[in-house]
């Protein structure tokens, strides 16, 4: 991703525009100055000529003209060169004082003195103009620099002030999580667009949080409400099985019994998930996982008996972690029962504690599970299994809210669930 900041984008465009305008303006400015200067020079030349005629220089004799020519460096009267009307040309002439060629404007004009036609020639040095152009250019550069630093400085300042509420909003939205109870608090702003943005976001978040909350409560309420019909169901089955049943009827009642306890388990798990979602397990304490595992090993060994599983433990590292005790126990129970449930006959379960990790390693079907989906709710590898597809989702949820990490891997035909703290 090569994303630029909004501010850089606008500043860059401004800078680009300014530079282009100034760059193109510079030569144009130069030529206009030059043209103006030449125009003014030409005006002066024509003015001088008009003055010459007005001063009645028509009365000059040939000697006067020679004398004029002798004392006037810039204006010379020469014999008619065939000039019909005033004409001005630009020419490079050698300037002895500067010892180099310099630009001149030269006026050729016909004048009549004592009835004889002469040509009036006046030249003016343009060298002063070069100096002026240099000063203009220097000034121009100076202005460009002031302008550019001004633009950069102002836009930087704008970043700090005008965009502040925007970036504040942005970072709050980034941190926002709908399942955590931390609604964003946008800072107030006097910029209409940002104000509207904040208001819309607030409304959006409020509405979605409300929907999310009612959805969560719905799950919890639904699960609670189901308890009563389940109780009816259960008590009636209990009553039914006291009757004198035929073999066929007994089998039906047994399977009903299994069904109701399955629904019950599912319901309890849904209730647990929604309770975790609703954050009713806030208490944190230090839990020694080894103690819990050792204490309940008998129970799980008993559960593993029908499959004749061998459970080995290597609990040499003491795992003392901080978290909610009830949830940690649910987590361990689920991991343990998971390893039993998905095991094969005469399989093994190995529980290993490491520095800050706990591993449940078990035999099972010799195909790896897909890590991406196993932790999803109701994702069942074996659709006919008695599990309700919530066990791993609960494990994941507990890890998420406790900031632990659960990973699955498949190695040497062994399924490994690794919990890191």
């Amino acid at each position, binding site marked *: 991703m090569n994303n630029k900041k909004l501010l850089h984008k606008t500043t860059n465009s401004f800078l680009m525009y300014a530079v282009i305008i100034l760059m193109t303006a510079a030569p144009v400015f130069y030529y206009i100055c030059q043209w103006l200067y030449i125009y003014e020079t030409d005006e002066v030349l024509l003015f001088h000529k008009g003055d010459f005629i007005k001063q009645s220089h028509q009365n000059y004799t040939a000697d006067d003209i020679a004398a004029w020519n002798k004392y006037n460096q810039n204006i010379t009267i020469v014999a008619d060169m065939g000039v019909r009307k005033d004409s001005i040309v630009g020419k490079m002439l050698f300037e002895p004082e500067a010892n180099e060629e310099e630009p001149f404007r030269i006026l050729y004009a016909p004048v009549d003195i004592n009835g004889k036609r002469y040509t009036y020639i006046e030249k003016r040095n343009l060298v002063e103009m070069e100096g002026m152009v240099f000063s203009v250019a220097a000034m121009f550069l100076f202005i460009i620099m002031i302008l550019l630093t001004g633009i950069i400085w102002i836009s930087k300042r704008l970043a700090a002030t005008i965009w502040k509420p925007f970036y504040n909003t942005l970072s709050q939205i980034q941190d926002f999580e709908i399942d955590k109870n931390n609604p964003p608090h946008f800072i107030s702003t006097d910029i209409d667009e940002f104000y509207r943005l904040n208001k819309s976001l607030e409304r959006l978040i409020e509405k979605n949080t409300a929907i999310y909350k009612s959805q969560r409560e719905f799950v919890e309420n639904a699960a*609670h*409400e189901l*308890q*009563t019909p*389940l*109780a*009816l*169901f*259960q*008590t*009636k*089955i*209990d*009553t039914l*099985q*006291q009757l004198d*049943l035929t*073999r066929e009827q*007994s*089998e039906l*009642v*047994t399977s009903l*019994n*299994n069904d*109701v*306890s*399955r629904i*019950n*388990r599912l319901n*309890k*798990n849904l*209730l*647990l998930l929604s*309770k975790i979602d609703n954050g*009713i*397990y806030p*208490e944190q*304490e230090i839990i020694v996982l080894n103690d819990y595992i050792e204490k309940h090993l008998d*129970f799980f060994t*008993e*559960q593993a*008996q*029908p499959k004749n599983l061998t459970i080995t433990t290597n609990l040499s590292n003491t795992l003392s972690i901080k978290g*909610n*005790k*009830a949830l940690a*126990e*649910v987590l361990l*129970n*689920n991991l343990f*029962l998971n390893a039993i*449930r998905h095991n094969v006959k005469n399989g093994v379960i190995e529980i290993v504690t490491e520095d800050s990790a706990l591993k449940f390693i078990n035999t099972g079907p010799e195909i790896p599970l897909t890590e991406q989906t196993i932790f999803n709710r109701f994702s069942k590898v074996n659709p006919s299994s*008695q*599990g*309700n597809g919530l066990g791993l989702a609960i494990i994941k949820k507990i890890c998420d809210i406790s900031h632990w990490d659960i990973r699955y891997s498949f190695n040497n035909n062994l399924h490994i669930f690794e919990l890191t703290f």
Partner: protein
Amino acid sequence: MRREDGLENKIQKISYTDRFYSVFLQNSFVNCNMKILIIEDEREIAQSIQAYFKTNGIQCETAENYNLSLTKIDSYDYDCILLDLMLPDGDGFDILKELKSKNKTEGVIIISAKENLETRLEGFNLGADDFLTKPFHLAELLVRMQALIRRKNFKGSNSIVFNEIVVEIFSKTVTVNDTKLDLTKKELDLLLFLIGNENKVLSKSAIAEHLSGDMADMLDNHDFIYAHIKNLKKKLTQAGSGDYIKTIYGLGYKWENE
């Protein structure tokens, strides 16, 4: 999941102790004279409990609302009250308060669909003796109730006698014709559960859930009880007891006098 946090353990301990007191002087005199009140707005649940308990000689009265419950509590003394917390015209907790204010000593078992730590704690604080979450097995309710009444009526006797079998509750010993049996904790628990539900067909799930306590909600396989049943049966018969544990094909087990 029944466990909710550290405090929960305390509650669990209370109900675990109950299980050890599970049965009170079986079938001889206690059950016969027992009279309990079922406060439950679901009429059919109340009826099921009533029917199940009746065959064990327990007399049940029912009340499906708050006002009727108060009237009945005022008029009679019960051995035990089964209390649903959500009633159409009132709160079950108010009934507990009422009992307390009238210095009534009835044992109370809350049976509620609502299950969370706060409800439990409040129930216990208001004087309830046990808490059972719906749905429950009738067999479980029966032994919990027997245990409760046993504790309430305790008058020095602490043994359960079934023919040649004697269970000493406090010392947790079982003798058959004065021969001491070496039972595991689970086997003792199972024995008390079976005797307490004499003549009742107990499903595997009811037994499994009773034996696994707060882990019950997670178990999807109840086969582990076979081993316990088998061992208990063997130990009892080897000690010369009658074979009271009957296997009901497909369904489960039944404790039955031969």
